[in-house]
């Protein structure tokens, strides 16, 4: 547990720092939720709500990365999920029918799960490198989404219960936050209360040893890609419901990069093995808060990328024990022997 807390420490510090910057720029209101129409609002709650799709995707991505894989297709799957649901709803005569909405959501989830299973099969059974296997759907997936919508942006009536998925609230907390939090808990329970998490880490850490230990590594691989895709589909539904429309071309564009970024900021290594769901959640919040910070401190749009780069760089460096050792060296008492320059040897072996 101790190492776990240590891993989380730096991302948490960055997150807090960002929040403090925002408070300094816009006042304490930033963090304090407001209530209107019986729904929590306010800057920070909005950030959480908007981060929900990214969190969902990043959670799935965490599992995939734990198996030494990567899923580039999540952005496209996001678009597909959104497109299926919206198109199905707008084609129906009565968009407010609850059954229709459930049907549309179910169909979208089933299709995205199938897509995920397909990715998993490519990786596990055909032996295609994950980045290539999912690149195929990254390219084709948006095409499929556009095909579904005919290149249009289907707009669901505001009266349709579908939009509740993005705009509604339960016990004053916006539904997207509920969904993402429940998914976080569900995945955490699924991986940590069963042996799935350990088996995942084992498959990611050493696939051959896992096979010889009798683990169904192929089945597990398919499962994680399926879950990841399902999460992406769900994220797409929330995004679409929030807007009441599905933009096949731009929905979830480049979200895969943000998701991977969140996972890594959260302490999970891309080399597979150990994974940290809570770390991922914090990574997502950092990314979400960052976008707002740029506006709040009054930087122009041109700064969006630069600021993100700087924050990511700082997080990455702070997480590196070697960097901390190097930067703190002048402040430490010198050891008896002349200290070496940043000794590379040990770092490499420590991996």
């Amino acid at each position, binding site marked *: 547990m101790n190492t776990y807390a240590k891993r989380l420490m730096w991302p948490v510090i960055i997150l807090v720092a960002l929040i403090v910057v925002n408070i300094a720029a816009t006042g304490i209101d930033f963090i304090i939720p407001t209530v209107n129409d019986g729904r929590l609002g306010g800057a920070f709650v909005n950030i959480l709500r908007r981060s929900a799709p990214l969190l969902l995707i990043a959670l799935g991505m965490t599992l995939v990365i734990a198996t030494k894989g990567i899923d580039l297709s999540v952005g496209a799957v996001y678009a597909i999920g959104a497109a299926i649901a919206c198109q199905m709803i707008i084609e129906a005569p009565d968009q407010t029918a609850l059954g229709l909405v459930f049907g549309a959501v179910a169909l979208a989830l089933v299709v995205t799960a199938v897509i995920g299973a397909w990715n998993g099969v490519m990786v596990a059974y*055909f032996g295609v490198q994950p980045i290539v296997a999912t690149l195929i759907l990254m390219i084709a997936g948006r*095409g499929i989404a*556009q095909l579904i919508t005919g290149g249009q942006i289907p707009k669901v009536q505001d009266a349709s219960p579908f939009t509740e998925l993005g705009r509604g609230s339960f016990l004053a907390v916006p539904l997207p936050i509920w969904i993402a939090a429940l998914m976080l808990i569900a995945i955490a329970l699924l991986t940590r209360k069963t042996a799935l998490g350990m088996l995942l880490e084992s498959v990611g850490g050493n696939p051959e040893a896992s096979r010889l230990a009798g683990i169904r590594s192929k089945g597990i691989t398919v499962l994680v890609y399926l879950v990841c895709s399902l999460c992406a589909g769900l994220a797409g539904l929330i995004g679409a419901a929030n807007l009441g429309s599905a933009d096949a071309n731009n929905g979830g564009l480049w979200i895969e990069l943000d998701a991977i970024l969140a996972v890594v900021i959260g302490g999970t290594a*891309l080399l597979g093995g150990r994974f940290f769901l809570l770390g991922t959640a914090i990574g997502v919040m950092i990314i979400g808060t960052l976008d707002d910070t740029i506006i709040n401190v009054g930087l122009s749009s041109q700064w969006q990328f*630069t*600021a993100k780069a700087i924050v990511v760089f700082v997080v*990455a460096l702070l997480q590196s024990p070697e960097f901390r050792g190097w930067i703190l060296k002048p402040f430490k008492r010198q050891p008896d022997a002349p200290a070496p320059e940043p000794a590379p040897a040990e770092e490499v072996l*420590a991996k």
Partner: protein
Amino acid sequence: MSTHQLTERPSRSTLFDGLTRYIPISATVALLIALYLGGVANYPNFDNPQVVAKLFIDNAPLLVIAVGMTFVILSGGIDLSVGSVMAFSTMACAWLTVEAGIAAPVALVLVLAFGTAWGLLIGAVIHYFDVQPFIATLVGLFLFRGLTLQISDTDVSMREIEFFQWGMTHVDFGNVRDGGFWLPYLSFVAFAVVIIAFVVLHYTRFGRGVYAVGGSEQSALLMGLPVARTKIGVYAVSGFCAALAGILAAFATKSANPLANVGAELDAIAAVVIGGTLLTGGAGFVLGTVAGVMVWGMLNTLIAFQGNLSSWWARIVMGILLLAFILLQRVLARSGEKRRT
């Protein structure tokens, strides 16, 4: 007692032992030829040699960044910053020559030096601070897109700078109208990069070190190889290649666009991997990358010749072609592996 031979390792099957590593690339080349013949059979004018030449005109910058990416991937890393560094380099060329009025050759040297220096820096961060390459270079992706936009948020023309005419100067091979083709100088720059990269990777200590580090970084270290130099070196190579690709792009269009090359890193990675290089490092060839870039370009050409695909069908067809290609490649590679044992 020990008159018998020490070990019983059979020295048979030596032929295939050395050749197995060529299976993925052979599969790629074979499929590339099949794609080309398919195009010739189906579309008029596809047999025009310019179709092939064109792969090296429009894809020259991609080829150059893919070569740099090959170094990085072979060493077991990844470089996501190439697209942005490339766009930044083009923009920097424009700014230095048009705004700052610096002589173009000087500007080019500055840009190349900057790209290399960036590679060195990020390589050092990756090596000494043990930051994951994906993240360290993702910083580059964001940073240079941001800096590019801060230099200019509109496209900038360099047409007034005489020097930039050089890149697109044609070299004709036969008359284009009856079966000849042409290539611009910048294609030859790309070819030169490929040849140099090939020689460096296969015939120098640095190159073999890249394979060794990719195979196992820890082993390479314990074998006494200069791991730090190698790891930092590959990012420097990639940074240099990205800057050079940016310059080639400047030659190709004589303009700089702040939103150019978004996602180019993925194209480059795809080309490298299609060319048979393993993302886990240690296995692959720079010539495979050339084949990978050609496949990428060929797929786009096929779609353009088909010409009646909507935006979405074009994407779907691209995905299907890529899928078919990768599965065939796997099948060929697997049957090749089987034959060995």
